[in-house]
């Protein structure tokens, strides 16, 4: 089945190509194209996954005719394939979930542009997952940034544009730092392909030269990616961005975009620099510290919000903190926990944004805390979906968030120095999460006594507005969450094996 080796390349190309075509067709066709493309990518990734599982090692795929170390390469193993599969699922469900809003939020005539952006984003995500070359990575990072910016801005209202500009500025700073880091790396190692670069670095370390530059490289790359993924204190762009974009965009941005950068960062840590070297540079400790701070500050900010969208956005800040905390632990178990949480968060955040939209729809478009009273009775599916998402965030057993918490806790036990901080942070974070999420859940299920009856007059209209696709997406995401919660062993195993092959 060597043919399957081509699939990752195909998926990237397909995504780009669809984007190009979509720019020429109208909105509906563009949408259909996108959906088809994503489904196709999904299937292709599934096939790739089974292929890599079969052969049990990672495959390096030459792009073009130039072999390493001059040409370009794609590399994929179990983890990459799985991530591609997972992200395509989330992408699909996000598009489905926010579909009706795309129509209302975007100017007629510009809808296809939105789908172009989604296609671009898909391709850049896949590329970041699969690439084995640093510069290619950078290129697609930039493509990703532009696509994301476009998605934020497409709503063309005041908030959206301000948010987009803010995002652009921060993100480009991040990319800039990343670029400088890569340049230095090229300078020091003379390679852009990851594996040769790694060999060169190992040589450098044993020789004992270029110590400071190496440190600077690591710092620059880490900070660059941290800014782009929204680690505290570089998170200020998140609330506005996620808050005011159209639902599909919010879902994709919070679930996928930041994750792509994190995956790239992990890849560089493992494959280029070498995890041991990273540990010895103590950069991980800084990431750990910021991760913990993010966990707490993100939640604290969320408690203070009255607008539901911003609340969910700040929650993302906290969750990114979890991931960085896991990375910062510096152990294999910590990384597994971080990657698992990456998956959890992707699923849960999409779920939250999509179901929240379902609730706003039936509350006359209001998104503030009080306006959503009794919303759950008007849109049952959205209510249940939101509750499940909230409970998963809090870490309720049987849901994916619990497994994340569990993995983080057990990983922390291996590191006595960081253990206490981690555990305390987890506990405080759980309580804080409970405070704002469950407060919201209570609100959507209860108004003043007897209020439910009085809102019945616009219930019928409201329910009609909430669309089938939204509900379908919500339910699918709930099932995904439950799957991760109940059948996590398979996934954890996969991640573990994948990480082994990653390096």
């Amino acid at each position: 089945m060597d043919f399957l080796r081509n699939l990752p390349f195909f998926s990237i190309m397909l995504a780009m190509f669809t984007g190009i075509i979509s720019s020429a067709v109208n909105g509906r066709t563009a949408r259909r194209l996108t959906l088809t493309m994503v489904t196709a990518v999904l299937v292709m990734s599934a096939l790739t996954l089974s292929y890599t599982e079969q052969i049990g090692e990672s495959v390096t795929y030459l792009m073009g005719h130039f072999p390493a170390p001059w040409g370009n390469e794609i590399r994929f193993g179990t983890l990459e394939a799985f991530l591609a599969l997972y992200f395509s699922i989330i992408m699909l469900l996000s598009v489905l979930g926010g579909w009706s809003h795309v129509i209302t939020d975007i100017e007629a005539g510009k809808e296809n542009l939105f789908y172009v952006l989604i296609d671009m984003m898909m391709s850049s995500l896949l590329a970041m997952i699969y690439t084995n070359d640093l510069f290619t990575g950078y290129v697609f990072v930039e493509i990703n940034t532009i696509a994301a910016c476009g998605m934020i801005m497409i709503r063309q209202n005041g908030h959206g544009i301000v948010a987009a500009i803010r995002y652009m500025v921060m993100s480009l700073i991040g990319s800039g730092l990343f670029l400088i880091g890569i340049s230095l790396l090229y300078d020091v190692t003379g390679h852009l392909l990851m594996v040769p670069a790694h060999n060169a670095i190992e040589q450098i370390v044993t020789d004992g030269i270029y110590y400071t530059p190496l440190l600077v490289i690591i710092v620059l790359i880490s900070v660059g990616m941290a800014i782009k993924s929204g680690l505290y204190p570089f998170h200020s762009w998140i609330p506005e961005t996620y808050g005011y974009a159209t639902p599909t965009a919010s879902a994709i941005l919070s679930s996928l975009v930041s994750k792509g950068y994190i995956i790239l960062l992990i890849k560089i840590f493992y494959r280029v620099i070498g995890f041991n070297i990273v540990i010895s540079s103590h950069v991980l400790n800084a990431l750990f510290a910021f991760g913990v701070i993010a966990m707490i500050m993100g939640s604290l900010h969320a408690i203070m919000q009255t607008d539901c969208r911003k609340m969910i956005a700040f929650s993302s800040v906290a969750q990114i903190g979890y991931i960085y905390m896991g990375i910062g632990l510096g152990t294999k178990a910590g990384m597994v926990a971080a990657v698992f949480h990456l998956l959890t968060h992707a699923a849960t955040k999409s779920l939250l944004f999509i179901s929240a939209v379902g609730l706003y729809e039936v509350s006359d478009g209001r998104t503030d805390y009080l306006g959503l009273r009794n919303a759950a009775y008007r849109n049952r599916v959205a209510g249940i979906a939101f509750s499940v998402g909230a409970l998963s965030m809090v870490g309720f057993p049987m849901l994916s968030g619990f497994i994340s918490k569990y993995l983080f806790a057990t990983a922390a036990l291996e590191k006595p120095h960081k253990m206490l901080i981690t555990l305390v942070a987890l506990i405080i974070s759980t309580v804080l999460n409970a405070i704002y999420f469950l407060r919201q859940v209570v609100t959507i299920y209860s108004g003043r006594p007897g209020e439910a009856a009085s809102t019945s007059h616009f219930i019928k209209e409201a329910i009609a507005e909430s669309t089938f696709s939204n509900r379908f997406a919500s339910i699918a995401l709930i099932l995904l969450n439950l799957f991760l919660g109940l059948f996590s062993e398979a996934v954890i195993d996969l991640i573990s094996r994948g990480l082994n092959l990653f390096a």
Partner: protein
Amino acid sequence: MMQGILIIPVLFPIIAGIAMIIIKPKAKVYSPWFIEGIVLLNSILVWTIMLTGMGRGDGAVLFKLTYDLSIYFRLDGAGMVFTGLVSFLWPLATLYAFEYMEHGEHIRSFFSLYTMTYGVTLGIAMAGNLVTLYMFYEMLTLVTFPLVLHDRTREARRASRMYLYYSIGGAACAFMGLVFVLVYGSTTDFTLGGVFGGGAQGVDHNILLAMYVLAFFGFGVKAAIVPVQKWLPAASVAPTPVTALLHAVAVVKSGAFAIIRLTYYSYGADFLRDTWAHYLTAAFVMITILYGSTMAVKEIHFKKRLAYSTISNVSYILLGVVMMSPAGLVAAFTHLVFHAFMKICSFFSAGAVMHRADRNYVYELDGLGYKMPITFACYTASGLALMGMPPFAGFISKWNIVQAALSEGGILGTCAIVILLYSALMTAIYMLSVTVRAFFPAKDTVLTANDGVSDPGWKMLVPLVIFVIVFTVMGIYAKPLIQFLEEIC
């Protein structure tokens, strides 16, 4: 071994409850007999399992969350005590709730959640390892807090939020204790004597003890220990069947039961004895007893007074637990069982008064004893029993606690005895002052306000009387129970 049958009593009420919410019956509300039937059926099933010995065995695995974390049920001696207690009380409480809720709103969701709570509590009782216990513990929070929220008034919302936050915080702390047992102990399965037998390798004992204390207070949230007890008096705003069953029996007893499991069956009493963790937890337990008893005397809201009494009494159970000895465990179980009956009787009497006469405050109860004689007679009996007057059951459980305290000796033992007796005196005051008001109203009180009040219907009275009979009989004829408990421990 056909152990799968253990799963049924847990899942059946949960599923039934969910079905009740989803499926709208024709008559808008489910027939009370249907609901009662479900609960009763489940109880009969449970008792059959226990009595025919089907319960003994290796347990039934429901599913596995990960390799290490499996959800499984097993009915050992301790589990049987709690299971038996819960399943005996639930049908009676449901019966009581019918009359109480006759005129309330949201009846369908109320009974649906009430039934689900039954299943969840049984899940806690029959949990075979710490993970299962934890999971059902979290679920208990989830199904009970809407019950607290039931009236949807502002106090109800505040109270339910407080309950929720405290519970989740507590569960998070308990979770950390769980993780430690998992990693450093041999298993999370409940084994009498603990799973740290070989002395935990690779970690400082002090850290393990700190985690124990964390988990103790984490589970202790539900058991209302100082300093995490504030939610219980606030939750008194819930309808009486909720406060009575849940906060006198299911929720607080689950908290106490979880601590028992944590102490004797996970960490192990010998591991914990005479450590700083032992003394710290014992100190807080004793502070709670003092706090609960004293606040109860000061409190003038009837149900809140009983809530403080619960705080104090659940810490009697914990006092037995912190003796870290088999005798202590026997004492803890004894009081767990007896107190459930006594307290539920008190709460139900209070509820009957509130329901029939609409009086919430102690000073409003003058002279009601003549209008509601059976109710207040039952209340008085429960008051005397709680106080520890022989021949009621309360005396026996206090006796056992004291005996356990004495064999421990030292400052711990002496303090325990003094505190228990102080609490008994306070109990006499706060319980009996109500009785005195009810039956001996001062000469000049206007009693016409009491016209039209009468004893509640049979659905409320029958459970009350049954409870009185039980705790009276148990006071006299406690031997079989005590023997059973001693065997377990």
